[in-house]
């Protein structure tokens, strides 16, 4: 079991996780399914605020893991809310309003059967992703800050996701700084190591014998305000920022290698 598996199985209270995903949502479905199903098994209350499309995939994954999601909904252990509808309940002039947000989320928490002071609470949210996709970046970051305020008061764990491709140009430190500063962990979408191998291969192809010393330098980079993240994602961000003229070539090679290895 990897440390990331352990994190999904037994998330720390006040942990605020984020996962990035591309058009293929399988990594998201797998991880969120694991995070939520482990919570259901251990008696935690589960709050899901997701798009209907993604909730379909995640609930299917929960069922595949042997849990009757429908029964959990009926029992009040699990509550699903539509991300678009919930978001509209507290947005004001293009930004989330704290008082309305707190009222909406507290009301949702009260609808859950198990008091969160006794059992745990795990939440999965996609409202920030809806805002990010609509390029309402400030609103998304403000909403993450609101969640952090709630996390500090209520001691639950929260899992967020964003449709951002780690191979894409949007996966850049300048664009993601505030997002990475508001989370505790960036969960890898791809746990098998295929992404890491593809990226290492691409770095090796481009830099040749220099790659080892360069990689040592990148690994030594320290950014304490950011979420803890896998080495590969951290390296991609470093390359994007520090070697921009090499970045596209490396990342395109890595993408091609990754797609080959995953049979796409």
């Amino acid at each position, binding site marked *: 079991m990897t440390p990331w598996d352990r994190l999904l199985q037994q998330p720390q209270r006040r942990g605020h996780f984020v996962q990035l995903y591309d058009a293929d949502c399988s990594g998201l479905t797998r991880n969120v399914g694991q995070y939520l199903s482990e919570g259901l098994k251990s008696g935690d209350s589960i709050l899901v605020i997701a798009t209907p499309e993604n909730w379909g995939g995640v609930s299917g994954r929960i069922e595949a893991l042997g849990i009757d999601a429908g029964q959990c909904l009926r029992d009040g252990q699990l509550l699903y809310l539509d991300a678009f509808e919930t978001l509209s309940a507290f947005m004001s002039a293009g930004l989330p309003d704290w008082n309305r947000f707190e009222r909406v989320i507290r009301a949702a928490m009260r609808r859950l059967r198990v008091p969160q002071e006794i059992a745990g609470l795990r939440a999965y949210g996609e409202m920030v992703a809806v805002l990010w996709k609509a390029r309402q970046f400030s609103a998304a970051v403000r909403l993450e800050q609101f969640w952090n305020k709630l996390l500090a008061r209520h001691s639950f764990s929260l899992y967020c996701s964003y449709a951002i491709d780690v191979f894409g140009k949007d996966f850049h430190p300048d664009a993601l700084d505030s997002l990475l500063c508001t989370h505790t962990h960036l969960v890898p979408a791809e746990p098998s190591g295929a992404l890491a191998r593809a990226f290492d291969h691409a770095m090796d192809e481009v830099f040749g014998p220099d790659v080892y010393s360069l990689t040592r*330098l990148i690994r030594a980079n320290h950014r304490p305000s950011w979420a803890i993240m896998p080495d590969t994602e951290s390296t991609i961000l470093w390359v994007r920022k520090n070697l921009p003229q*090499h970045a596209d070539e490396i990342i395109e090679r890595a993408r091609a290698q990754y797609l080959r290895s995953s049979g796409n």
Partner: protein
Amino acid sequence: MQTKSSSALVHNTSVLLVTDDHSTDQELRHAFASAAPDLTLNIASRRKEIETLEIPALLLLDLVLSGEPAIDLLRWFRGDPRYRRVPVIALAADGLEALMARAYAMGVNSCLLKTVDPPALELIARGIATYAGLIRPAEAHHFN
């Protein structure tokens, strides 16, 4: 102060270390001499000294200086057309998270924790030399 040797690995590449900490100066000087003898390492601690040296490929900035605050020097680097395109790697001791966050907000590219372990320092020096050799002047506008 300048140390230089000639070899084929890195051409026309210099790194400027800005520090007034004697041990940091000595440890990095030894690490670079051992791990990256091809690199020109210039060392300075004050703005006036820095201005007398060639524009480096890369700046290493000690975040704790006893004279002018490193943050002020960083502001100067980022505002001066001669240095604004030069990537900056900050050097900091563990526990200075707030200062590191401020340095990142002001445009440092990376931040390294200081270490006194010679093998670890040599690996870092080697990495810095490799990185300095890979930087192309034309890409520097991305750092603005």
